[in-house]
C-alpha cells in the first residue's frame, strides 16, 4: 500500500454516510464501485454483477455477502469471490483505507 502512488487513492465517502445494509455507489472516472460496510470495516467491489448488467447498489448486504438484485448471485464482499449461482466470475475488489472519518478507495486503471 505504501508504494502505491498517491493519485490512485480517491475520496469515497464519510464513514457515517455508508449504510450497513446496502452498498454505497462511488464513481471514479469510468469505474463504478460499490462501497460496503461490514461493522467497522469498509470494502470496495465492482458495482456491476459479473453475470448480467445489474447494480449491487440496488441490492443488499447479507452477512459478509452482497446479493445481486436481478438473479440473486452472491459474492463475498472482502474477496469478491462468487458464493452463489448464477454468476461464475469473481468480482474485482479495490483497496480501501480510512483516514479519520474519510474513506478512500484505490483505483488503478490498468
Amino acid at each position, binding site marked *: 500500500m505504501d508504494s502505491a502512488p498517491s493519485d490512485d487513492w480517491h475520496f469515497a465517502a464519510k464513514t457515517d454516510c455508508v449504510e450497513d*445494509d*446496502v452498498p454505497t455507489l462511488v464513481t471514479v472516472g469510468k469505474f463504478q464501485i460499490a462501497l460496503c460496510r461490514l461493522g467497522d470495516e469498509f470494502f470496495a467491489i465492482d458495482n456491476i454483477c459479473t453475470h448480467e*448488467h445489474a447494480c449491487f447498489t*440496488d441490492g*443488499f448486504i447479507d452477512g459478509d455477502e452482497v446479493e445481486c438484485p*436481478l*438473479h440473486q448471485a452472491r459474492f463475498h464482499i472482502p474477496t469478491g469471490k462468487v458464493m452463489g449461482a448464477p454468476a461464475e466470475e469473481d468480482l474485482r475488489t479495490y483497496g480501501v483505507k480510512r483516514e479519520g472519518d474519510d474513506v478512500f478507495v484505490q483505483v488503478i486503471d490498468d
Partner: protein
Amino acid sequence: MSVDVRWATKPFNGYGINSTLKEDEELTHVGPETPCGEYMRRFWQPVAMSSQLDNQPTPIRILGEDLVVFRDMSGDIGLLHKHCAHRGASLEFARLEEHGLRCCYHGWHYDIDGTILETPGEPEDSKIRHKVCQGAYPVREVKGLIFAYFGPPNEIPEFPYYDSINLSDHELLPYSIHSPSNWLQESENAMDPHHSVFLHTRHGGSQFAGLEHFAELPVVVYHDRAEGFVYSHARRINDLIMIRFHDHLTPNMAQNGAMFQNLAKPKAFGRMALTKWVVPIDNTNSRKFGWRHFNDKDEGLRQGTREDIGWEKVDFYGQTAHRSYEEMRSNPGDWEAWSSQRPIAVHQSEYLGTTDEGVSKLRSKLRRDIRAVAKGKQIKRPEGTPENPIPTYAGDTTLRIPKKNRDDTALIDRVQREVYEIYESGDKYVGADRSEFIQREVEARFPSS
C-alpha cells in the same frame, strides 16, 4: 432427486429444470409473525369500502387474519377479530348495538375497541369483562375507504395524509378489486413501466385511450426516496417529450398519471388518475383498494365513467376477473398478467432483464425494510397531515423540446431529471401554491413556445 437448474440453457431442454423452487417467503408471506407480515403491519392499510358496511357485520380477511368490520348504531366503525373471544362463534352473525356489537351465541357485547361491555349470562359480580378483550384494531374512514392499523399499539403512526386525498379540483371515487395472487405481483406491476409497451399497446392494440404513445419504448428514471420511489418514463412524439411520473411508496401504495388524457400539447404537473394500495388478503389473494380521481383538467378526453367504479370494477381496461375468457385470451390486461404469475410468483425461476430494474429495486428495498423491522429498527414511514400533506408526484408533464443533433435518449433522460428536481423543489409549498410554483418553474426552464 431434484437438480439445481433454475433455467433451461439450451433449446428443447424443458426437461430437468428444477421444479422444486420455492416462493420468496420473506417478501410474500404476510400472516402474523412472518417477517413481511410484521413489516406490513407498521403501515395503515385500507381494509374495506364504506359501501360494504350495512346493518350486519361484514366478514373480511386481511393479512391472513379473519375479521369483521361494521358501523355501529351510533355511526362508529369497528374492526374486530372475527371469532368471539368467548367460544369462537363468528361475529359476522352478531347484532349491531348502539356501541359495538353483540355475539349471537351467548350475547357477549363488545365495544368497537374490543372492550367487553356486557356478559349477560354471567353472574352480576363476574369479573370476566374486565379481564378479556376481543382483538380489535384502530380504524380511520377517508373518502369511502376504511383504513386500519394492525401493528404494535406503541408504534402506531399518525394516519399519513397525502396531498392527493384533497386536491381542490379532483373528485375521488373509491373502488376495490380482488386478485387470486400474492400482493407483491400487482404491486410490482406498478413499478414496471415497460409492461405498458407490450401488454397495453403492442400485444393487442392500445388499451387506454390517450396513451397510444406507450407503444414506444420509454426512457426511465428511478429516484430512491426514504419512503419508496418516484419514477418517470418518457417518450418522444415529434417535438414533444411526454413524461409520466409515478409514486410508489413502500410497501404497497402507488399512484399514476391520468387516464383518458390528451397529451398532444405542452402541460406541466398534471396530477394522478389513481391512488391505490394492493393489500394482502392472505399469501395467495390480494385486494386492491383505491380511489379513481376525476378531474376535467387532466382527463381531457372525458371518457371516464363514474358508474363503472366501485366494488369489483373500475372504468379502464383489463383490471378484473369479470370478463370473458375469450376477451382475456384475445387481449389480455393487467389482471391476467399479475394473476397468472402463479398464486405466489417464484422469483428464483425468473430471469430478470433491464426492463425489470424497478421490480428489482422494489424487492431489494422491501427486503431491507423487512429485515430492519425484524431487527427492531425504525423504518421511514410517510408522515403528513391535512394541513401539511405528504407531497406526491404522480402525473404527466409534456414539454416542447425538439430533437437535437445528439443522443436523444440522453436528452430525454436529462429533461426528466430536471423536471423531477423542479417538482421536488416545490415540496416546501402546499396545495395550489405548490402547483403554481411547479408550473411556473417548468415553464421558465422549458418555455412551451
